[in-house]
């Protein structure tokens, strides 16, 4: 984990209300991996908190993240131009790790939760694993990264809540509709809490024991595990830090 000054290379819309930001790294950073995140400054001095954003793609010298423009902070972040310098702590969190024997992988993503899923496709592309992707969007204008999703997957369903693109259903419904043919060895998921709850309930209702890992989102303070702002409840009654102990948890170990 490092505190670095990074330079914005690109900060452009990829879908309605979603920007893709690529920044260059001033030095080599170890441990950049799918499912981990960066804590990026907004860069205006008024917003003291950094924005924790999942890594979407990384190469040796640059990192790409995608973020929803939701409040004043991300609106301000969207104004940063190529050449602007931001501060960043990275890489943070535990991330997704696929075991050797997990050959068939289901990815269930909703909204901006699709981006950590794409990081998995990018990282394990060419590893021989088969990916079955189920990505849900609110509406047609929110759909993005279709090429990366379809190109990296054995089978991909892009669906929308309102049916304006693909089938009218959510990612979890698309996943269960295809479950018998995908027969995944492991399920990875990221998306809004109601989506993750539906996934957990659906797995329980069908008696599916397949390992399932979810990446959680929470408002963060320090991002490094010190301030105890971003906690989630565990099934054993204890709290875990989303930033340090997560953001990826086994679906059975967290209360959603």
């Amino acid at each position, binding site marked *: *984990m*490092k*505190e670095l000054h990074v330079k914005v290379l690109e900060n452009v819309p990829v879908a309605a209300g979603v920007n893709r930001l690529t920044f260059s790294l001033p030095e080599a950073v170890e441990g950049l991996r799918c499912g981990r995140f960066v804590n990026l*400054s907004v860069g205006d*001095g*008024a*917003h*003291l*908190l*950094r924005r924790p954003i999942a890594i979407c793609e990384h190469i040796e010298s640059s990192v790409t993240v995608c973020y929803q423009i939701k409040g*004043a*902070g991300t609106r301000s972040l969207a104004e940063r131009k190529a050449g602007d310098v931001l*501060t960043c*702590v990275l890489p943070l969190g535990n991330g997704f790790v696929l075991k050797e024997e997990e050959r068939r992988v289901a990815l269930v993503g909703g909204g901006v939760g699709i981006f950590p899923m794409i990081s998995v496709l990018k990282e394990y592309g060419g590893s021989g694993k088969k990916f079955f992707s189920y990505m849900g969007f609110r509406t047609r204008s929110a759909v993005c990264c279709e090429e990366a999703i379809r190109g990296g997957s054995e089978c991909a369903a892009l669906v929308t809540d309102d049916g304006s693109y693909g089938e009218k259903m959510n990612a979890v419904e698309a996943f269960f509709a295809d479950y018998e043919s995908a027969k995944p060895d492991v399920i990875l998921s990221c998306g809004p809490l109601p989506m993750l709850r539906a996934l957990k309930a659906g797995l329980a209702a069908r008696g599916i024991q397949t390992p399932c890992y979810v990446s959680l989102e*929470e*408002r*963060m*303070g*320090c*991002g*490094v*595990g*010190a*301030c*105890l*702002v*971003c*906690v*989630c409840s565990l099934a054993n009654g*204890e*709290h875990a830090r989303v930033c*340090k102990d997560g953001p990826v948890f086994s679906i059975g170990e967290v209360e959603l």
Partner: protein
Amino acid sequence: MADLRVNICGAAFKNPVIAASGTFGFGREFDEIYDIGVLGGISTKGLTLEPRLGNPTPRIAEGYGVILNAVGLQNPGVEAFVREDMPFLRKKGTVIIANVAGRTLDDYAAICARLDGLVDLIELNISCPNVKCGGMAFGIRPESVKEVTRAAKSALAATPLIVKLSPNVESIAVNALAAQEGGADCVSLINTLTGMVIDIERRKPLIANNTGGVSGAGIRPIAVRMVFEVCRAVAIPVIGMGGIACAEDAVEFIMAGASAVQVGTANFTDTLAMPKIIQGLNTWMDAHGVKNLEEIRGCLTLNG
């Protein structure tokens, strides 16, 4: 190289920059980024006798130049701290300040008795505005400030006592005097100002606890004024905090009369904030021909 050393109630700080309670845990995470042994001191996450889970989430929100938090004293309890974190902190060679909280006078006395002689200083959290029972209740009225200070002090034989003052009061100087009368060896201020941010789409407060403690650069002028008032009122040392993000901010507090400063929110904005402030103090003092902190402490002259 300026002399940044400061001695507060017998505790020798290598510099006046202390991590503020609640923003730094017990130091382990930041120690992965830099050697926390460079810090003057660390005020720990607020400790209670028993472990606490704290408030529901979201626990944090933002305003212009400020943040609000309502963590609600989540902590592993004093025994886990003594067992697991004390040995680590001791090895780091920085002053250990245990920040403690309780629901009753007996809680305060018991946790102070447990830590007496183990840590360098104890900081009494009587002003945390987030926990419904305890916290605020002790910190508001001068009578209860004095009472809780006395209860804590009576349980301490070896470790000096800092009382951390709330700004959400009628007169922070009067409360500082009450702490001094209760036996405090030092006061620290300001704790956070109580605030609220509303999510207008949901028509609800953004923080689950509804209100949260406001901190960060935006509150600094309020904190400087209060530190100045308290330094005028009491004879014991004062530790200043509130929105310090750079060396020049720290100098303001020292000129207002503070013996040392604490840095909290700035750790979120820049994980290297404190080492930079220490370095910046050196640079500023050298550039201004200031050899030690005594030369500028309380040096402020008011405009006629």
